[in-house]
């Protein structure tokens, strides 16, 4: 395995800034279409990647409809099923949902949908903030390999990938440029 470490990691850009923006715009329209407007609509982004995409979605929808819609940030660390067993330790971040989710239509936003475990944790967390009328899932990338019966309602792009590859959504808010890359896994 040590040879693998020294080998250059191959990296392929699968979506550029323009394509990401078009996908987000389309998802915003689909959300409005499916929910017939913004009544009771709230957007919740999963920290960290989903949070920025959720903000962009919120801005696009608010601009189209001319009113601000409620927006929250969810950190799912405390709801993970591997938090005390996994060696990969995500740092605990702040959750910020300053309104009740009772009877709301919640659009849950994440960057990449993979095993579905993050979404399971997120749904458990959301229920602690009230009883939403419904929860819909919007993701930029669906890369397959589900381990739980979960699917997205709004998808930017379906990206077939090997289980061992890494799909990273880079956004200007964090890395300075918008792109989706697929890389060989770090061994």
């Amino acid at each position, binding site marked *: 395995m040590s040879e693998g470490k020294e080998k250059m990691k191959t990296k392929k850009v699968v979506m550029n800034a323009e394509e990401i923006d078009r996908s987000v715009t389309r998802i915003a329209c689909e959300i409005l279409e499916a929910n017939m407007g913004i009544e009771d609509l709230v957007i919740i982004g999963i920290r960290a990647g989903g949070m920025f995409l959720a903000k962009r979605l919120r801005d696009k929808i608010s601009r189209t409809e001319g009113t601000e819609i409620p927006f929250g940030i969810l950190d799912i660390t*405390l709801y993970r099923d591997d*938090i*005390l067993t996994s060696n990969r330790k995500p740092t*605990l971040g*702040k959750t910020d949902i300053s309104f009740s989710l009772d009877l709301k239509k919640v659009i849950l936003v994440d960057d990449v949908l993979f095993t579905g475990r993050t979404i399971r944790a997120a749904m*458990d967390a959301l229920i*602690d903030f009230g009883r939403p009328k419904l929860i819909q899932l919007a993701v930029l990338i669906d890369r397959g390999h589900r381990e739980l019966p979960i699917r997205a309602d709004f998808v930017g792009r379906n990206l077939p990938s090997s289980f061992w590859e890494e799909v990273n959504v880079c956004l200007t808010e964090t890395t300075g440029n918008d792109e989706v890359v697929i890389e060989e896994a770090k061994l």
Partner: protein
Amino acid sequence: MKLSKKDILGIKDLSREEINLILDTAESFLEVSTRKIKKVPTLRGKTIINFFFEASTRTKTSFEIAGKRLSADTVNISATTSSVVKGETLTDTARTLEAMNPDIIVIRHSAAGAPHMLARLVKQSIINAGDGAHEHPTQALLDMLTIKTEKGRIAGLKVVIAGDIAHSRVARSNILGLIEMGAQVTVCGPAMMIPRDIDKMGVSVSYHMNDAIKDADIIMMLRIQLERQGDNLFPSDREYSNYFSLNNRNIKIAKPDVLVMHPGPINRGIEIAPDIADGVKSLILKQVTNGVAVRMALLYLLAGGA
């Protein structure tokens, strides 16, 4: 980042990075206590024993609530209602508790070093909830969290700790923590209550309240331990109060944005005037609220979270 420690025995063992990790984690936990459903499933299936050999309201309740809000099972034992009254030694009690497989044991004991002995003896994580006049690390951490959330920083602030410094585990832990985090600390009290060589801990010493508090950002008052009255450390409550209380007169000397803290329980009218304790500058109840978040953070980090 992960806390690479089995136990939390004192602030003395914690680096600046570790204190920052604990405070940052605690800040994230503050929000959980404001929800309608004040509970997260993180420590499901973990058992926490709170073993208190000394009287306590806030620390004991705070640890119990912290454990419960993380979904751990918490068990409380008091010395007065346990086999300790039948003469069982601390070692035997500890081994007995260990055999029931808890994950974390929180202990308060009147003997300095009791938690350290326990930590060597059992495989579980030990948290020191106060040992004699030695350390009270969770109090210092909640005080530092309170300062950080109220003032936005700790480094560079001037903090006065006033009262019976010599007998105070709260003072000792706070001095260690605040100095490590880059604050300037002044201790103030009657000479009988200031340990000799305390300046070696990196603090300044003052024997006059007015001098000490005039440029302070934070004034931390300590409880005068009335149960020590027999030790003749001071002539009377009234005399102590005249010279070393924080009151409506001397607070005027302090900066307009000074904030006042007290670990509780307070002796109203002795070390702190009721108007100050209940006033707008007081952080006393915020300290209690923050205590739950700090203890949640410690339980979470010791159980393997990050």
